[in-house]
Protein backbone atom coordinates (compact mmCIF):
# COMPACT_ATOMS: atom_id res chain seq x y z
CA UNK A 1 0.00 0.00 0.00
CA UNK A 2 1.46 3.31 -1.06
CA UNK A 3 1.29 6.42 1.09
CA UNK A 4 1.61 8.60 -2.01
CA UNK A 5 -1.54 7.13 -3.45
CA UNK A 6 -3.31 7.56 -0.12
CA UNK A 7 -2.35 11.23 -0.06
CA UNK A 8 -3.42 11.64 -3.64
CA UNK A 9 -6.82 10.12 -2.83
CA UNK A 10 -7.32 12.22 0.28
CA UNK A 11 -9.08 15.22 -1.35
CA UNK A 12 -11.30 12.93 -3.44
CA UNK A 13 -12.45 11.05 -0.37
CA UNK A 14 -12.88 14.30 1.54
CA UNK A 15 -15.29 15.42 -1.18
CA UNK A 16 -17.11 12.11 -1.05
CA UNK A 17 -17.33 12.42 2.73
CA UNK A 18 -18.98 15.83 2.33
CA UNK A 19 -21.66 14.30 0.12
CA UNK A 20 -22.19 11.43 2.59
CA UNK A 21 -22.42 13.92 5.47
CA UNK A 22 -24.83 16.18 3.63
CA UNK A 23 -27.19 13.35 2.71
CA UNK A 24 -26.93 11.84 6.18
CA UNK A 25 -27.65 15.11 7.95
CA UNK A 26 -30.64 16.03 5.80
CA UNK A 27 -31.93 12.45 5.83
CA UNK A 28 -31.66 12.04 9.59
CA UNK A 29 -33.26 15.36 10.47
CA UNK A 30 -36.17 14.72 8.12
CA UNK A 31 -36.44 11.10 9.35
CA UNK A 32 -36.84 12.41 12.89
CA UNK A 33 -39.63 14.72 11.74
CA UNK A 34 -41.41 11.97 9.80
CA UNK A 35 -40.93 9.62 12.74
CA UNK A 36 -42.36 12.19 15.15
CA UNK A 37 -45.47 12.72 13.04
CA UNK A 38 -45.99 8.96 12.58
CA UNK A 39 -45.57 8.12 16.26
CA UNK A 40 -47.85 10.99 17.34
CA UNK A 41 -50.72 9.92 15.07
CA UNK A 42 -50.36 6.40 16.44
CA UNK A 43 -50.04 7.53 20.08
CA UNK A 44 -53.11 9.75 19.88
CA UNK A 45 -54.95 7.16 17.74
CA UNK A 46 -55.86 9.66 15.03
CA UNK A 47 -58.30 7.82 12.75
CA UNK A 48 -57.25 7.18 9.13
CA UNK A 49 -53.84 8.86 9.57
CA UNK A 50 -52.97 6.18 12.08
CA UNK A 51 -53.67 3.39 9.57
CA UNK A 52 -51.72 5.25 6.90
CA UNK A 53 -48.74 5.57 9.24
CA UNK A 54 -48.92 1.89 10.11
CA UNK A 55 -49.02 0.92 6.44
CA UNK A 56 -46.11 3.20 5.60
CA UNK A 57 -44.04 1.82 8.49
CA UNK A 58 -44.57 -1.78 7.42
CA UNK A 59 -43.84 -1.00 3.76
CA UNK A 60 -40.74 0.95 4.66
CA UNK A 61 -39.27 -1.54 7.11
CA UNK A 62 -39.86 -4.60 4.99
CA UNK A 63 -38.30 -3.46 1.73
CA UNK A 64 -34.57 -2.89 1.09
CA UNK A 65 -33.37 0.69 0.77
CA UNK A 66 -31.86 -0.06 -2.64
CA UNK A 67 -35.32 -0.99 -3.93
CA UNK A 68 -36.81 2.16 -2.39
CA UNK A 69 -34.07 4.24 -3.97
CA UNK A 70 -34.59 2.72 -7.42
CA UNK A 71 -38.32 3.21 -7.08
CA UNK A 72 -37.85 6.91 -6.33
CA UNK A 73 -35.09 7.52 -8.88
CA UNK A 74 -36.28 5.40 -11.81
CA UNK A 75 -39.97 4.90 -10.98
CA UNK A 76 -41.29 8.27 -9.93
CA UNK A 77 -40.19 10.11 -13.15
CA UNK A 78 -42.68 7.85 -14.98
CA UNK A 79 -45.49 9.60 -13.11
CA UNK A 80 -43.89 13.00 -13.73
CA UNK A 81 -41.84 13.37 -10.56
CA UNK A 82 -38.20 13.67 -11.43
CA UNK A 83 -35.83 14.90 -8.79
CA UNK A 84 -32.07 15.40 -8.75
CA UNK A 85 -29.90 12.48 -7.57
CA UNK A 86 -29.27 14.22 -4.29
CA UNK A 87 -32.96 14.80 -3.56
CA UNK A 88 -33.74 11.20 -4.52
CA UNK A 89 -31.04 9.92 -2.19
CA UNK A 90 -32.35 12.02 0.70
CA UNK A 91 -35.94 11.01 -0.04
CA UNK A 92 -35.02 7.32 -0.01
CA UNK A 93 -33.13 7.72 3.26
CA UNK A 94 -36.10 9.51 4.82
CA UNK A 95 -38.52 6.89 3.52
CA UNK A 96 -36.46 4.23 5.25
CA UNK A 97 -35.42 6.22 8.33
CA UNK A 98 -38.84 7.71 9.09
CA UNK A 99 -40.29 4.33 10.01
CA UNK A 100 -37.31 3.31 12.13
CA UNK A 101 -37.46 6.62 14.00
CA UNK A 102 -41.24 6.32 14.40
CA UNK A 103 -40.90 2.89 16.00
CA UNK A 104 -38.08 4.02 18.30
CA UNK A 105 -40.05 7.05 19.49
CA UNK A 106 -43.26 5.08 19.84
CA UNK A 107 -41.55 2.60 22.13
CA UNK A 108 -40.40 5.57 24.22
CA UNK A 109 -43.85 7.15 24.39
CA UNK A 110 -45.44 3.86 25.34
CA UNK A 111 -42.89 3.27 28.08
CA UNK A 112 -44.04 6.36 29.97
CA UNK A 113 -46.66 5.16 32.43
CA UNK A 114 -50.17 6.50 31.83
CA UNK A 115 -50.41 7.61 35.47
CA UNK A 116 -47.68 10.18 34.74
CA UNK A 117 -50.09 11.69 32.24
CA UNK A 118 -52.89 11.54 34.81
CA UNK A 119 -50.79 13.28 37.39
CA UNK A 120 -49.98 16.06 34.90
CA UNK A 121 -53.63 16.30 33.84
CA UNK A 122 -54.72 16.54 37.46
CA UNK A 123 -52.51 19.64 37.78
CA UNK A 124 -54.63 21.27 35.07
CA UNK A 125 -52.30 20.77 32.12
CA UNK A 126 -53.85 20.44 28.68
CA UNK A 127 -52.90 17.67 26.25
CA UNK A 128 -50.21 19.72 24.59
CA UNK A 129 -48.58 20.71 27.88
CA UNK A 130 -48.67 17.12 29.16
CA UNK A 131 -46.83 15.94 26.05
CA UNK A 132 -44.38 18.84 25.88
CA UNK A 133 -43.31 18.98 29.52
CA UNK A 134 -43.97 15.53 30.98
CA UNK A 135 -44.30 12.69 28.47
CA UNK A 136 -42.01 13.77 25.62
CA UNK A 137 -38.84 14.42 27.68
CA UNK A 138 -39.15 11.07 29.44
CA UNK A 139 -40.02 9.22 26.23
CA UNK A 140 -37.05 10.63 24.36
CA UNK A 141 -34.66 9.70 27.14
CA UNK A 142 -35.99 6.14 26.99
CA UNK A 143 -35.86 6.09 23.18
CA UNK A 144 -32.41 7.69 22.93
CA UNK A 145 -30.41 4.43 22.60
CA UNK A 146 -32.74 3.26 19.82
CA UNK A 147 -32.66 6.65 18.11
CA UNK A 148 -28.87 6.84 18.14
CA UNK A 149 -28.60 3.28 16.83
CA UNK A 150 -30.87 4.40 13.98
CA UNK A 151 -28.66 7.43 13.30
CA UNK A 152 -25.59 5.21 12.93
CA UNK A 153 -27.58 2.73 10.83
CA UNK A 154 -28.84 5.45 8.48
CA UNK A 155 -25.38 6.95 7.97
CA UNK A 156 -24.08 3.52 6.99
CA UNK A 157 -27.10 2.98 4.76
CA UNK A 158 -26.18 6.08 2.68
CA UNK A 159 -23.52 3.92 0.99
CA UNK A 160 -26.41 2.57 -1.12
CA UNK A 161 -26.84 5.89 -2.96
CA UNK A 162 -23.72 5.19 -5.02
CA UNK A 163 -26.06 2.96 -7.03
CA UNK A 164 -27.62 6.04 -8.65
CA UNK A 165 -24.16 7.52 -9.34
CA UNK A 166 -24.20 10.05 -6.54
CA UNK A 167 -20.58 10.74 -5.61
CA UNK A 168 -20.60 9.73 -1.94
CA UNK A 169 -17.72 7.92 -0.20
CA UNK A 170 -18.72 4.52 -1.56
CA UNK A 171 -18.99 5.85 -5.09
CA UNK A 172 -15.56 7.50 -4.91
CA UNK A 173 -14.00 4.23 -3.75
CA UNK A 174 -15.70 2.13 -6.42
CA UNK A 175 -14.76 4.70 -9.04
CA UNK A 176 -11.10 4.73 -8.06
CA UNK A 177 -10.92 0.95 -7.94
CA UNK A 178 -12.44 0.75 -11.41
CA UNK A 179 -10.09 3.38 -12.86
CA UNK A 180 -6.75 2.75 -11.13
CA UNK A 181 -6.98 -0.79 -9.72
CA UNK A 182 -5.54 0.56 -6.43
CA UNK A 183 -7.97 -1.59 -4.50
CA UNK A 184 -6.10 -1.69 -1.18
CA UNK A 185 -5.60 2.06 -0.94
CA UNK A 186 -9.15 2.87 -1.98
CA UNK A 187 -10.74 0.41 0.45
CA UNK A 188 -8.41 1.52 3.24
CA UNK A 189 -9.42 5.14 2.75
CA UNK A 190 -13.08 4.12 2.57
CA UNK A 191 -12.92 2.39 5.97
CA UNK A 192 -10.97 5.27 7.50
CA UNK A 193 -13.45 7.87 6.31
CA UNK A 194 -16.53 5.95 7.46
CA UNK A 195 -14.87 5.52 10.85
CA UNK A 196 -14.04 9.22 10.98
CA UNK A 197 -17.71 10.01 10.51
CA UNK A 198 -19.27 7.25 12.59
CA UNK A 199 -16.97 6.97 15.60
CA UNK A 200 -17.68 10.51 16.88
CA UNK A 201 -21.40 9.93 16.35
CA UNK A 202 -21.30 6.71 18.38
CA UNK A 203 -19.20 8.26 21.13
CA UNK A 204 -21.46 11.30 21.33
CA UNK A 205 -24.48 9.00 21.55
CA UNK A 206 -23.13 6.98 24.45
CA UNK A 207 -22.10 10.19 26.22
CA UNK A 208 -25.62 11.57 25.81
CA UNK A 209 -27.17 8.34 27.05
CA UNK A 210 -24.98 8.39 30.17
CA UNK A 211 -25.73 12.02 30.88
CA UNK A 212 -29.46 11.60 30.58
CA UNK A 213 -29.42 8.55 32.78
CA UNK A 214 -27.61 10.52 35.44
CA UNK A 215 -30.00 13.42 35.13
CA UNK A 216 -32.70 11.77 37.15
CA UNK A 217 -33.83 8.47 35.72
CA UNK A 218 -34.54 5.18 37.32
CA UNK A 219 -36.69 6.97 39.86
Amino acid at each position, binding site marked *: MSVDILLEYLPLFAQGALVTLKISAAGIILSLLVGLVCCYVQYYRVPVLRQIAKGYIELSRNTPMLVQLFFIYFGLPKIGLSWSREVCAIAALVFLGGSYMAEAMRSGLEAVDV*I*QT*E*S*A*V*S*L*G*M*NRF*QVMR*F*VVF*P*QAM*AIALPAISANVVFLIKETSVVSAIALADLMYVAKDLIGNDYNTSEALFMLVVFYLLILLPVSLLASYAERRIRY*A*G*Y*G*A
Partner: protein
Amino acid sequence: MTDEILLSVKDLVKSYEGTSEVLNGISLDIHKGEVVVVLGPSGCGKSTLLRCMNGLEEYQSGSITLDGEKITKNGANMTALRQRIGMVFQSYELFPHLSIQDNITLAPVQVQKVPKEQAQAEAERLLERVDLLDKRTAYPRQLSGGQKQRVAIVRALAMHPEVMLFDEVTAALDPEMVREVLDVMLTLAEQGMTMVIVTHEMNFARAVADRIVFIDGGVIVEETDPETFFEHPSTERAKQFLKTFTFEKKA
Protein backbone atom coordinates in the same frame (compact mmCIF):
# COMPACT_ATOMS: atom_id res chain seq x y z
CA MET B 1 -66.40 23.86 58.09
CA THR B 2 -69.23 25.81 56.54
CA ASP B 3 -72.63 24.88 55.10
CA GLU B 4 -71.51 25.80 51.62
CA ILE B 5 -71.31 22.73 49.38
CA LEU B 6 -68.12 22.74 47.32
CA LEU B 7 -68.09 19.35 45.65
CA SER B 8 -71.29 17.47 45.03
CA VAL B 9 -71.71 13.89 43.82
CA LYS B 10 -75.22 12.80 42.84
CA ASP B 11 -76.36 9.25 42.00
CA LEU B 12 -72.98 8.41 40.50
CA VAL B 13 -72.90 5.17 38.53
CA LYS B 14 -69.62 3.99 37.08
CA SER B 15 -68.59 0.71 35.51
CA TYR B 16 -65.47 -0.23 33.66
CA GLU B 17 -66.00 -1.79 30.26
CA GLY B 18 -67.61 -5.20 30.50
CA THR B 19 -67.75 -5.39 34.29
CA SER B 20 -70.54 -4.88 36.75
CA GLU B 21 -70.94 -1.49 38.39
CA VAL B 22 -67.98 -0.32 40.47
CA LEU B 23 -70.01 2.60 41.81
CA ASN B 24 -73.71 2.05 42.03
CA GLY B 25 -75.47 5.27 42.89
CA ILE B 26 -73.19 7.28 45.16
CA SER B 27 -74.39 10.63 46.50
CA LEU B 28 -72.07 12.72 48.58
CA ASP B 29 -71.75 16.43 49.35
CA ILE B 30 -68.41 17.82 50.43
CA HIS B 31 -68.71 21.10 52.30
CA LYS B 32 -66.14 23.84 52.22
CA GLY B 33 -63.49 23.21 54.84
CA GLU B 34 -64.69 19.70 55.52
CA VAL B 35 -62.45 16.64 55.78
CA VAL B 36 -64.18 13.53 54.51
CA VAL B 37 -62.47 10.17 54.88
CA VAL B 38 -63.64 7.41 52.57
CA LEU B 39 -63.16 3.90 53.95
CA GLY B 40 -63.96 0.48 52.59
CA PRO B 41 -62.49 -2.87 51.64
CA SER B 42 -60.24 -3.06 48.58
CA GLY B 43 -62.10 -3.05 45.32
CA CYS B 44 -65.08 -1.27 46.85
CA GLY B 45 -64.74 1.64 44.45
CA LYS B 46 -63.30 4.31 46.72
CA SER B 47 -60.32 5.08 44.48
CA THR B 48 -62.61 5.11 41.46
CA LEU B 49 -64.85 7.62 43.23
CA LEU B 50 -61.85 9.89 43.80
CA ARG B 51 -60.72 9.57 40.19
CA CYS B 52 -64.20 10.48 38.98
CA MET B 53 -64.16 13.58 41.20
CA ASN B 54 -61.13 14.82 39.27
CA GLY B 55 -62.44 13.87 35.85
CA LEU B 56 -59.86 11.13 35.36
CA GLU B 57 -62.62 8.58 34.77
CA GLU B 58 -65.76 8.70 32.70
CA TYR B 59 -68.97 7.68 34.43
CA GLN B 60 -72.21 6.30 33.07
CA SER B 61 -74.80 8.34 34.92
CA GLY B 62 -75.28 10.77 37.75
CA SER B 63 -73.31 13.98 38.13
CA ILE B 64 -70.35 15.52 39.86
CA THR B 65 -70.21 19.27 40.28
CA LEU B 66 -67.68 21.68 41.72
CA ASP B 67 -69.40 24.92 42.71
CA GLY B 68 -72.17 23.97 40.30
CA GLU B 69 -69.82 23.31 37.35
CA LYS B 70 -70.04 19.84 35.92
CA ILE B 71 -67.01 17.55 36.07
CA THR B 72 -66.68 14.97 33.29
CA LYS B 73 -63.59 13.41 31.79
CA ASN B 74 -63.68 15.17 28.44
CA GLY B 75 -65.86 18.11 29.40
CA ALA B 76 -65.22 21.65 28.30
CA ASN B 77 -63.32 23.78 30.77
CA MET B 78 -61.85 20.73 32.53
CA THR B 79 -58.31 22.10 32.67
CA ALA B 80 -59.65 25.12 34.58
CA LEU B 81 -61.72 22.91 36.89
CA ARG B 82 -58.85 20.53 37.60
CA GLN B 83 -56.69 23.43 38.73
CA ARG B 84 -59.17 23.90 41.55
CA ILE B 85 -58.92 20.24 42.59
CA GLY B 86 -55.57 18.94 43.83
CA MET B 87 -54.85 15.24 43.64
CA VAL B 88 -52.18 13.12 45.31
CA PHE B 89 -51.58 9.56 44.13
CA GLN B 90 -50.45 6.45 45.96
CA SER B 91 -47.33 6.18 43.81
CA TYR B 92 -46.37 9.90 44.14
CA GLU B 93 -45.99 10.39 40.38
CA LEU B 94 -43.39 13.11 40.61
CA PHE B 95 -41.86 13.89 37.22
CA PRO B 96 -38.55 11.98 37.31
CA HIS B 97 -36.77 14.21 34.78
CA LEU B 98 -37.35 17.41 36.75
CA SER B 99 -35.81 18.67 39.97
CA ILE B 100 -38.05 18.98 43.03
CA GLN B 101 -38.37 22.72 42.49
CA ASP B 102 -39.27 22.28 38.80
CA ASN B 103 -41.78 19.59 39.70
CA ILE B 104 -43.55 22.14 41.88
CA THR B 105 -43.30 25.19 39.62
CA LEU B 106 -44.06 23.49 36.28
CA ALA B 107 -47.85 23.71 36.45
CA PRO B 108 -48.07 27.16 38.09
CA VAL B 109 -45.71 28.62 35.48
CA GLN B 110 -47.07 26.83 32.40
CA VAL B 111 -50.73 26.54 33.26
CA GLN B 112 -51.45 29.53 35.49
CA LYS B 113 -48.78 31.74 33.93
CA VAL B 114 -47.35 32.70 37.31
CA PRO B 115 -44.01 34.54 36.86
CA LYS B 116 -41.13 32.12 37.38
CA GLU B 117 -39.56 33.98 40.34
CA GLN B 118 -42.88 34.16 42.12
CA ALA B 119 -43.54 30.44 41.55
CA GLN B 120 -40.08 29.62 42.87
CA ALA B 121 -40.57 31.71 45.97
CA GLU B 122 -43.88 29.98 46.54
CA ALA B 123 -42.27 26.56 46.04
CA GLU B 124 -39.60 27.41 48.61
CA ARG B 125 -42.21 28.59 51.08
CA LEU B 126 -44.19 25.37 50.67
CA LEU B 127 -41.10 23.15 50.81
CA GLU B 128 -40.08 24.84 54.03
CA ARG B 129 -43.45 23.98 55.51
CA VAL B 130 -42.84 20.28 54.88
CA ASP B 131 -39.17 20.46 55.94
CA LEU B 132 -37.76 19.78 52.51
CA LEU B 133 -36.30 23.13 51.49
CA ASP B 134 -32.81 21.60 51.32
CA LYS B 135 -34.04 19.13 48.66
CA ARG B 136 -35.23 21.69 46.14
CA THR B 137 -32.43 21.05 43.64
CA ALA B 138 -32.50 17.26 44.14
CA TYR B 139 -34.21 14.85 41.77
CA PRO B 140 -37.11 12.61 42.81
CA ARG B 141 -34.97 9.45 42.72
CA GLN B 142 -32.76 10.92 45.45
CA LEU B 143 -35.67 11.18 47.88
CA SER B 144 -37.26 8.62 50.17
CA GLY B 145 -40.86 7.59 49.62
CA GLY B 146 -42.13 9.81 52.42
CA GLN B 147 -40.20 12.78 51.08
CA LYS B 148 -41.52 12.19 47.58
CA GLN B 149 -45.06 12.06 48.84
CA ARG B 150 -44.63 15.33 50.75
CA VAL B 151 -43.32 16.92 47.56
CA ALA B 152 -46.33 15.55 45.66
CA ILE B 153 -48.62 17.22 48.21
CA VAL B 154 -46.71 20.48 47.87
CA ARG B 155 -46.88 20.25 44.08
CA ALA B 156 -50.66 20.00 44.25
CA LEU B 157 -50.86 22.83 46.81
CA ALA B 158 -48.81 25.14 44.59
CA MET B 159 -51.83 25.39 42.29
CA HIS B 160 -53.89 26.77 45.22
CA PRO B 161 -56.65 24.21 44.89
CA GLU B 162 -59.95 24.58 46.74
CA VAL B 163 -60.16 20.89 47.51
CA MET B 164 -57.53 18.17 47.80
CA LEU B 165 -58.07 14.50 46.96
CA PHE B 166 -55.76 11.94 48.57
CA ASP B 167 -55.76 8.45 47.07
CA GLU B 168 -54.16 6.01 49.55
CA VAL B 169 -51.15 8.26 49.75
CA THR B 170 -49.38 6.27 52.47
CA ALA B 171 -50.13 2.78 51.13
CA ALA B 172 -46.78 2.44 49.38
CA LEU B 173 -44.71 3.80 52.27
CA ASP B 174 -42.62 2.10 54.92
CA PRO B 175 -44.30 2.41 58.32
CA GLU B 176 -41.82 4.93 59.70
CA MET B 177 -42.44 7.26 56.75
CA VAL B 178 -46.20 7.16 57.02
CA ARG B 179 -46.21 9.54 59.97
CA GLU B 180 -44.38 12.40 58.25
CA VAL B 181 -46.90 12.38 55.42
CA LEU B 182 -49.94 12.12 57.69
CA ASP B 183 -48.63 15.01 59.80
CA VAL B 184 -48.56 17.23 56.73
CA MET B 185 -52.15 16.26 55.98
CA LEU B 186 -53.24 16.89 59.56
CA THR B 187 -51.75 20.37 59.41
CA LEU B 188 -53.56 21.04 56.15
CA ALA B 189 -56.83 19.94 57.72
CA GLU B 190 -56.26 22.23 60.70
CA GLN B 191 -55.71 25.12 58.31
CA GLY B 192 -59.16 24.57 56.89
CA MET B 193 -58.39 22.82 53.61
CA THR B 194 -61.29 20.88 52.12
CA MET B 195 -60.11 17.31 51.78
CA VAL B 196 -61.36 13.95 50.57
CA ILE B 197 -59.10 11.18 51.82
CA VAL B 198 -59.05 7.51 50.89
CA THR B 199 -56.92 5.66 53.41
CA HIS B 200 -56.38 2.46 55.34
CA GLU B 201 -54.86 4.25 58.34
CA MET B 202 -57.73 3.91 60.81
CA ASN B 203 -56.19 5.93 63.63
CA PHE B 204 -55.40 8.73 61.25
CA ALA B 205 -58.90 8.60 59.77
CA ARG B 206 -60.36 8.97 63.21
CA ALA B 207 -58.10 11.90 64.07
CA VAL B 208 -58.50 13.89 60.86
CA ALA B 209 -62.05 13.24 59.70
CA ASP B 210 -65.10 15.42 60.16
CA ARG B 211 -67.10 12.67 58.54
CA ILE B 212 -66.49 9.04 57.65
CA VAL B 213 -68.01 7.57 54.51
CA PHE B 214 -67.94 3.78 54.42
CA ILE B 215 -68.34 2.28 50.97
CA ASP B 216 -68.86 -1.37 50.14
CA GLY B 217 -70.04 -2.94 46.91
CA GLY B 218 -70.21 0.41 45.15
CA VAL B 219 -72.70 2.02 47.54
CA ILE B 220 -72.39 4.11 50.69
CA VAL B 221 -73.15 1.73 53.52
CA GLU B 222 -72.57 4.05 56.43
CA GLU B 223 -71.97 7.77 56.73
CA THR B 224 -71.37 9.29 60.11
CA ASP B 225 -68.94 11.10 62.41
CA PRO B 226 -65.73 9.23 63.24
CA GLU B 227 -66.57 8.69 66.90
CA THR B 228 -69.81 6.88 66.06
CA PHE B 229 -68.29 4.97 63.18
CA PHE B 230 -65.40 3.52 65.13
CA GLU B 231 -67.18 3.00 68.45
CA HIS B 232 -70.71 2.07 67.41
CA PRO B 233 -70.85 1.13 63.74
CA SER B 234 -74.48 0.51 62.90
CA THR B 235 -74.13 -1.92 60.01
CA GLU B 236 -72.82 -5.46 60.04
CA ARG B 237 -70.51 -4.78 57.09
CA ALA B 238 -68.81 -1.87 58.84
CA LYS B 239 -68.34 -4.01 61.95
CA GLN B 240 -66.79 -6.77 59.85
CA PHE B 241 -64.52 -4.26 58.13
CA LEU B 242 -63.31 -2.71 61.39
CA LYS B 243 -62.65 -6.14 62.85
CA THR B 244 -59.97 -6.77 60.23
CA PHE B 245 -57.88 -4.00 61.82
CA THR B 246 -57.86 -5.35 65.34
CA PHE B 247 -55.79 -8.22 66.64
CA GLU B 248 -56.49 -10.28 69.69
CA LYS B 249 -53.79 -12.14 71.49
CA LYS B 250 -54.22 -15.86 71.30
CA ALA B 251 -54.90 -17.51 74.62
